């Protein structure tokens, strides 16, 4: 995983000084057992959707998923999704 400070107006500029513009480029590379590499790149901002303090304390659900046991050999099927609009745990 690689986290870099970048300039909002020009994402090719990587900042190494203290003039933080509040934007990060996060690069995650995963290598599978067959040595195939998968890379995903995302951005996070200090004013972005993940930086909100909730108005009240609570336990929030950020992900829902299913796990199914199929057949007598208990073959597992797992799936899920991130919830965009975080909701209070019921």
């Amino acid at each position, binding site marked *: 995983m690689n986290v870099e400070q970048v300039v909002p107006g020009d994402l090719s500029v990587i900042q190494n000084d203290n003039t933080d513009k509040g934007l990060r480029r996060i690069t995650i590379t995963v290598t599978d057992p067959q040595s195939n590499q998968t890379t995903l790149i995302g951005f996070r*901002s200090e004013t972005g959707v993940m930086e909100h303090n909730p108005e009240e304390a609570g336990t929030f659900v950020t992900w829902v998923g299913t796990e199914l046991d199929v057949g007598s050999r208990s073959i597992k099927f797992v799936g899920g999704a991130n919830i965009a609009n975080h909701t209070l745990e019921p």
Partner: protein
Amino acid sequence: MKKISLRQNPCKNNRHRRSGYLYVSVMGVATVVSIIGFSAMTLARMKLKSAQSGNESTEAVILSQSAIEYAMANIHENSSWRNDYAGSTEVPGTPLAVGNGTVTFKLVDDDGSLSDDTDDLATLYGIGRVGDTVHVQSVVIQPSGSEMEIVVGSWKRTAAP
């Protein structure tokens, strides 16, 4: 007129008949093998396409959220953003290449003019594209002092604006 009798050469006729059966059998087996092979190839191709589609969809989701983050950082840095990003068009004009896809955002004011009132709320659409897959997320942003902030609870996945 010459009379042709089947009894004339029974060995030869049997040999022809056996050859015919063999031919039909070989053709039948070859057809079945071909069908099995073609089905396996089609199934493999469908699985590959499904996996690729899943990967594209996952990356498009990440890029659409990244588009919102990118837009918020730009709005934070650019004091004339209401003029620069007016017109309900996707920004930047040339989509920003990120990973295997692109990122753009769009700002829409309900009254149609982003620049007419600095107190107006705006809807920010983050758009991620990977291949043929398009994913859009949106938030409502509101003034907070001299800055803009995301309205809590407004974050959602949505259709393209």
